[in-house]
């Protein structure tokens, strides 16, 4: 059975979209890039002559999803600014809303680290609940060991860490699982939010080439719950 994190990463990659901005000015792609770059989308630009219509084409790898005028997208992205004239109609609103899916993604290790730190901080702030973490390698774990010990002793978090072979010593205040072959290959973090939906989050990253990662994360309670259920069931 593939690891739940493999499924999570693969599903995100299948859903990955390409947003191609067709416009005369490359700067026209900036708002789209700022808004959607980490939202599991690749942003591209194609030059058109001055004065031509400007638009955005959305595709998955094999399918055309839709296209929309760039002005319309920009209006729909600024709901807080009163816009003269008619507000975007329902198909436009739902199309633009669907551009920002529930999954974020990055190929950038620093971005993935920053998100991991953000999730750890979130768990510490809430101070209780279950936190499941995989470090992909023992070396990576050992760099974080002191911080995790402290988290375990200073909060009421139940912290579970995963390895694919016996860990040489017990680690106080952490629950060590050392036969988790399916999980240990991934860099991951799943937090149950301490019970409520608002703080739930999960991240999984795969090292595809030495030091080249593809990672995805989500705040969607349903997706986080699914991952947690799968991790707990592997735990026994």
């Amino acid at each position, binding site marked *: 059975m593939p690891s739940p994190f493999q499924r999570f990463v693969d599903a995100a990659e299948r859903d990955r979209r390409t947003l191609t901005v*067709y416009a005369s000015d490359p700067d026209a792609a900036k708002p789209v890039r700022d808004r959607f770059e980490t939202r599991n989308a690749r942003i591209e630009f194609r*030059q058109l*002559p001055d004065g031509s219509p400007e638009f955005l084409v959305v595709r998955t790898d094999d399918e055309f999803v*839709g296209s929309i005028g760039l002005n319309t997208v920009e209006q729909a992205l600024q709901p807080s600014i009163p816009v003269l004239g008619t507000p975007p109609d329902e198909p*436009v609103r739902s199309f633009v809303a669907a551009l920002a899916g529930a999954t974020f993604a990055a190929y950038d290790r620093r971005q993935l680290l920053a998100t991991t730190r953000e999730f750890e901080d979130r768990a510490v702030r809430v101070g209780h609940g279950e936190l499941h973490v995989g470090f992909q390698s023992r070396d990576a774990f050992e760099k974080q060991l002191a911080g995790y010990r402290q988290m375990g002793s200073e909060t009421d978090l139940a912290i579970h860490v995963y390895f694919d072979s016996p860990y040489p010593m017990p680690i106080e205040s952490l629950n060590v699982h050392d036969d988790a072959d399916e999980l240990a290959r991934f860099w991951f973090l799943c937090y149950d939010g301490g019970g409520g939906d608002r703080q739930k989050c999960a991240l999984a990253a795969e090292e595809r080439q030495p030091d080249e990662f593809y990672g995805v994360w989500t705040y969607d309670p349903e997706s986080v719950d699914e991952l947690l259920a799968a991790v707990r069931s592997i735990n026994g």
Partner: protein
Amino acid sequence: MNNTQTIFEGTDDAVIEALADERRRCVLYYLQEHEHGTVPFDELADLVTGWTNAGGGVADADDRRRVAIRLHHVDLPMLEETGLVAVDDERRVTLRSLPDDVREPLAELLTGRLSH
């Protein structure tokens, strides 16, 4: 049409007819500007769908299918007949030749400056 005729005075009738339609002008212009004149059919269909629907709401997969059918059965054959483009077995579309007296007015037509 009248306007197009005036601009392309002296040009072959078949070329004039090929250029009378916004979708075909858009294809020609894009080919001229991109990838050394060769663009996959799918990209042209995306382009024309986005271009012709940019003023409205959302163009969906059905709109795109209609554009693709027309491109495949009407627009590209017409452009091929005039010798302006060639379509290969893998549905890549290549710009063959654009007479100098077509090239410049085409760009202007596309952006609407000469279309009114």
